[in-house]
């Protein structure tokens, strides 16, 4: 589904991504974990062109993204982004639209779906994230957890083949984390392909099939989630997971 080949990104003196090669299969849930500044979010954002990179390439469902950013990849990006959904740490709901308005915006204006059809589907999606009763609420009237669930529904409304999630629970109050993870677990159970940058190790262990550990712009360890998280081989992974201290 997604192939990353020798992806390199440098920011001044600092190497953000040091030549990453990875493949993400259809139907899999993959967790990207590791210490802050390790390159997880940057990698994720390179996959739908929100970040440019300096060398290497990304292939998403047959579309190739090359170094040079939006200028070079304009046409490919337009197609990639319709097939790849994204959920942000800060939700980024459209502040001037209601919950339902957020969900139907892209289907109507990007795909050209009829309003009635988009609305019906939008309501289904809001029901799926448990927010039927909030369809008329504006973002500033909702809790963080509610907003993030709307953001997930908004991404799903475009019927993405892959969902990229960039620390979807990091900005939430602790008591709100569960409701979002529940939604994501349900999506995983339905077989949605997901790449999730997360610090929720228990979620990664229970829900994701595979876990990649990024450190210093490199994948230092990868494998089935349970084995990576329960019994990491790399010392830095052990340090990150706090296993050596026990």
């Amino acid at each position: 589904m997604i192939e990353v080949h020798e992806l390199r990104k440098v920011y001044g003196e600092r190497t953000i991504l040091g030549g990453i090669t990875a493949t993400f299969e259809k139907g899999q849930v993959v967790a990207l974990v590791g210490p802050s500044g390790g390159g997880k979010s940057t990698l994720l954002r390179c996959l739908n062109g929100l970040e440019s990179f300096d060398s290497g390439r990304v292939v998403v469902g047959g579309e190739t993204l090359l170094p040079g950013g939006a200028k070079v990849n304009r046409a490919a990006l337009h197609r990639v982004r319709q097939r790849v959904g994204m959920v942000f740490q800060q939700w980024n709901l459209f502040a001037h639209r209601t919950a339902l308005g957020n969900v139907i915006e892209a289907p109507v204006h990007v795909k050209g779906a009829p309003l009635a059809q988009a609305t019906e589907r939008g309501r289904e999606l809001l029901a799926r994230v448990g927010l039927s009763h909030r369809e008329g609420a504006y973002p500033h009237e909702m809790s963080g957890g509610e907003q993030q669930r709307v953001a997930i529904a908004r991404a799903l409304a475009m019927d993405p083949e892959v969902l990229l999630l960039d620390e979807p629970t990091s900005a939430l109050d602790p008591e709100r984390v569960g409701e979002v993870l529940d939604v994501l677990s349900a999506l995983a159970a339905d077989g949605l392909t997901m790449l999730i940058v997360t610090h929720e190790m228990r979620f990664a262990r229970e829900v994701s099939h595979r876990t990649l550990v990024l450190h210093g712009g490199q994948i230092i360890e990868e494998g089935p989630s349970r084995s990576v998280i329960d019994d990491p081989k790399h010392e830095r992974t052990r340090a990150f997971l706090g296993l050596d201290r026990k």
Partner: protein
Amino acid sequence: MAVLSCHGRAAPTSALARVRAAGVLRWGGDIQGGEPYVYEDSEHGGRLTGFEVELASALARELGVRAQFVQNDWSALIPSLERGTFDVALNGVEVTAQRVGRVRFTRPYYIFGARLMARRDDARILATLASLRGRRVGTLANSYSYELLRGVAEVVPYEGVEEPYIDLVQGRTDAVLLDDIIATRYGEPKPELRVVGDLTDGYYAIAVRPAEADLQQALDRALARITASGELERILRGSNIWSDRERRLLAWTDDDQRRMLGTAAAGQRFGWSHVVLFAKGALVTLLLSALSMCLAIPLGIGLAVTRLYGPKALSRLAGAYVELYRGTPVLLQLYVLYYGLAPIVKLDALPAAVLGLGMNYAAYEAEVYRAGIQAVPRGQMEAALSLGMSLPLALRRVVLPQAFRLALPSVTNDFIALLKDSSLVSVITVVELTKQMTITAVDIRGWALPGALCALMYFLMSYPLSLWAQRLEARLARS
């Protein structure tokens, strides 16, 4: 006490005594009026020159004092005289009905013809007032010719002497009626124009404050002496403006003086008809401002978006536009647009005014929207792009609606400012509220009432907007 009263008696008790005690006769005029009245001679290092400069010196000499020039905007000479900025106004001040009741006039020092000019190829204009009925005729605002034309032709009021003839050549007006001195200097050199004829005689006289009869009489005597001695003729001939008409000055009698002043009817009273004119002026102001803003807003959005998201070259161009329009006076921009570009694009006054103000305000709106767009969190754009929106769609559907809400209070404030700035377009002959006020003030010989009404009308237009802006800001602050 005795000492004080003694001093009181010794102090100057009359205007003439005051002038003599000061040793100077302060006379008000406007260098902008240009040749041959009062102007700076560029060949002699900007020395003050002109037949009125010589006249003032000669009169001062007769009074035993020195002449001292005081620069003052021509259209405000009479108000400045009233408030005591100078002793006399001496700068092509024509004896008109409106002025007679307001100031005390000396005998005339020049008799001019109200000269009618038209385009060479336009045979419809004849040397009669009647032939001007329904035609657009340019002249200086509040001049003698302006009085003649009112109620007959469609008068187009100007503030400078060059512009009426430029517009006549361009076909924006059908004729120009102005003092022969002005026509000779600014109209007749234009090959496209012809002199139709002189309609009536008018007079330049020195304006003195009404209470200062002794100064007026002293100036009359001085004028009589320099007229009789041939000095006046020498001065006028020196500027090439002596005509057969001036012979009448040599035998000027009290009857002539009475006739000159007597043609001046009583001033108008402020009345209902003025209120109607004011309402019309306010309507022009409102229309002008609204149309200008309708132009400024989309243009400003375009500039802001181009500056932030456009290709480098276009972005620089948009930046240059903003800096150019913000960095130069709007008055100058209006001049260039209306007169400067006239040989290329001939705009009517109102469209030129809307375009000029709109393009100027677009520069300010561009900055307001730029700030607004930058205040929308980056994540909004990222979310839009990640949903497959193109940059233009993301801007249109997501960023700009939010930026517009952020900018709305500033935009409303700009509109209020525009309501008032729109008075500048009177320089390109649009009669809006402020211009109507100055015209009326001259008509009724007083500024207080027209000024108050004018202020009230501006307030009635801007205050509701101001309230709306406040409510808007409050609502935005809540969400």
